[in-house]
C-alpha cells in the first residue's frame, strides 16, 4: 500500500474530460477537493473509454472485448465515474461508495462491478495478470489488454518480472499505462520509459494534458512488442509551473 502526502503535486486534467464526468468523480470523492490519486488517472481512463477501448456496457463479458485493468486500485474514483458515465452501472452507485451494501469499494472487486476486470488494491498485481491475460488472448481474440499502473506502484518487484516476461514474449496486444505523478519513493534514474524500452517494449512519454498525443499513444500498437505509455500528470514546465511539485509522496 501507499500513502498520499498532503503535499502531493497538483494534477492537471485536460479540458477534454466532460464536466458531467468530473461531477461524477466528485460524487465518489464526496467533495470538490481533488484527490490526486483518483484524478491523476481521470484523463487516461476517460480517453481510453471514450476514444480507444472496444467495449460495450451492454455486454461487459463479451469474449472479444478489450480489457482495461486498473492495477493502481487505490484510486478507483475516476474509473468508477467513467464506467458509470459509459453506462456500465447506475450513477447512483457512486453516492455511497464503500458502504456495506455498495458494490463499489475503496479498492474495486471484479466480481461485484460490471466493467471492472480485476480486483486490485494491493500493488503490483495488475501487470502480471495483464501479461497472462494477453498471453491467453493472443492468437485467439482481437482483444487488447490495457493495464494502468502508478509510478510508485512500479516499486513492487513483481512488475519487474512482468515487464521482462512481456518483452521477451513480444506481447503486441498489451499496453501498460504508467501514470507518473512523481510519487515513487526512491526515484527512477534514467526515467521509467527507458526501463520498459530496454526490455523490448515500445515506449512513449506524454503529458496528461496533451490530449491529441495521449489519444494517439493509447491507440498505438506495434506488431511484435508490447507498448508502454508513460503519462506525466504534473503541469508542463511552460504551462503553470509549480516549484513544489517534487514534494511528492
Amino acid at each position, binding site marked *: 500500500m501507499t500513502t498520499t502526502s498532503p503535499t502531493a503535486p497538483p494534477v492537471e486534467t485536460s479540458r477534454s474530460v466532460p464536466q458531467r464526468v468530473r461531477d461524477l468523480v466528485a460524487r465518489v470523492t464526496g467533495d470538490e477537493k481533488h484527490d490526486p490519486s483518483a484524478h491523476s488517472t481521470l484523463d487516461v481512463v476517460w480517453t481510453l473509454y471514450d476514444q480507444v477501448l472496444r467495449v460495450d456496457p451492454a455486454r461487459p463479458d463479451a*469474449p472479444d472485448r478489450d*480489457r482495461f485493468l486498473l492495477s493502481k486500485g487505490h484510486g478507483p474514483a475516476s474509473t468508477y465515474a467513467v464506467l458509470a458515465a459509459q453506462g456500465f452501472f447506475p450513477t447512483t452507485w457512486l453516492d455511497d461508495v464503500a458502504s456495506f451494501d455498495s458494490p463499489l469499494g475503496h479498492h474495486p*472487486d*471484479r*466480481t461485484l462491478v460490471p466493467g471492472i*476486470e*480485476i*480486483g486490485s488494491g*494491493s500493488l*503490483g*498485481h495488475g*501487470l*502480471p*495478470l*495483464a*501479461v*497472462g*491475460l*494477453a*498471453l*491467453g*488472448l493472443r*492468437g*485467439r*481474440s482481437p482483444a487488447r489488454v490495457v493495464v494502468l499502473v502508478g509510478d510508485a506502484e512500479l516499486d513492487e*518487484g*513483481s512488475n519487474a*518480472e*512482468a515487464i*521482462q*516476461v512481456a518483452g521477451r514474449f513480444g506481447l503486441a496486444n498489451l499496453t501498460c499505462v504508467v501514470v507518473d505523478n512523481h510519487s515513487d519513493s526512491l526515484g527512477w534514474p534514467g526515467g521509467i520509459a527507458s526501463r520498459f524500452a530496454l526490455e523490448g517494449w515500445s515506449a512513449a512519454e506524454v503529458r496528461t494534458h496533451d490530449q491529441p498525443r495521449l489519444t494517439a499513444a493509447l491507440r498505438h500498437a506495434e506488431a511484435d512488442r508490447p507498448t508502454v505509455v508513460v503519462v506525466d500528470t504534473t503541469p508542463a514546465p511552460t504551462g503553470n509551473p509549480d516549484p513544489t511539485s517534487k514534494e511528492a509522496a
Partner: protein
Amino acid sequence: MTTLATAPALDLRTRFYEELDPLLDAHPDVDVVLAVIGSGYMARAIERHPGRVIDVGIREQALIGVAGGLALAGRRPIVHTFASFLVERPYEQVKLDLGHQDVGAVLVSAGASYDVSAGGRTHQSPADVALISALPGWTVHVPGHADEVAEILHREAAGTGRVYVRLSGQRNSRPRPVDGRLHLVRDGGGAPGVPLVLAVGPMLDTVLEATADLPVRVAWTATPHPLDADGLRALAGPAPVLAVVEPYLEGTSAAAVAAALVDRPSRVLHVGVPGETELRRYGTPRDHAAAHGLDAAGVRRRVTSLLG
C-alpha cells in the same frame, strides 16, 4: 488415457511430466506455466504443443500472476514448481491473482515436506497444505501413487476450481480411489469401537506397516481438504479414538477433524512433521522421516501411545 510405449513411471513427479503431453492433447484449454523447474523433463509436451508450455523464467510472482491472467482469459492453467516456490514465495499472488479474482488453476508441486532433504530448509515446505487450506475455495489432493496422479490431473484439467496437487517422493505400492472420500483399508476385525488411523496420501504403506499387529482400523484419503467429514463421522463411530497421520505439518487437518467430530466425545492424535523446531540436518528423506517420527517405527510409537 493415452497408451504409452513404455510402462508409466512409478515416481509421482515423473508421471506428472509424462502425463502432460496427453493432457494437452485431451484438454485444448489447458496451458502449463513454469518457472524453469520441470521444463527439462517435458520435451515432448513442449515440442508437440507450441506456446502452451509457458516458462516465465525464475519469476515466481509472475508464475502465479500469469496463471491468473490466463484463467481470466478462459484458459485452464496448470502451474508447477517446488512447493516452497509455488506456495510460500508467491503466497499473496495465490491469494489475490487466483482466489480474489475468483478464477481457478491447478497448482502441482514437487518437493513435498522433506523430499529435498539434502537441500535443506530453503527447499522444504511442510506447511504448504496448511497455507493453501487457509485460503477460500481450494481443494488439496495428496496422491500416493502415480496412477492416482494421472487420474487427478485429467479430472481437474477438465474442471474450473482452484486445486493444489502435492507430489511426493514417497509413494504407496498400489493405487487407491481418488474420489475425495475416506476409504477403509483395514477393518481391524470389524468391531465398531476399534480405534481408527487415518492415513493421508503417501503415508498409507507406512501406516499399514506400523500398525500391522495393532488393534486398529486403517482408513485412507488422497484429499485432506476439504475433508470428507461425513465419511470420517461414519467410520469414526460415536466415541472415536482416532489418529490422523499426514506427511506434512502436524495438525494441518486438526480443525477440520474437530469440526467433523464436534457432536461426540473423541480422543484425536495428529501425527505429522513437527512445526516447533527446524530440523537443521541434511541426509535422506528416510533420515528425515525417522527424525520426525514419520517412519513406521515412529508412527507405531505414536499410535501405541494413543491406544495406551
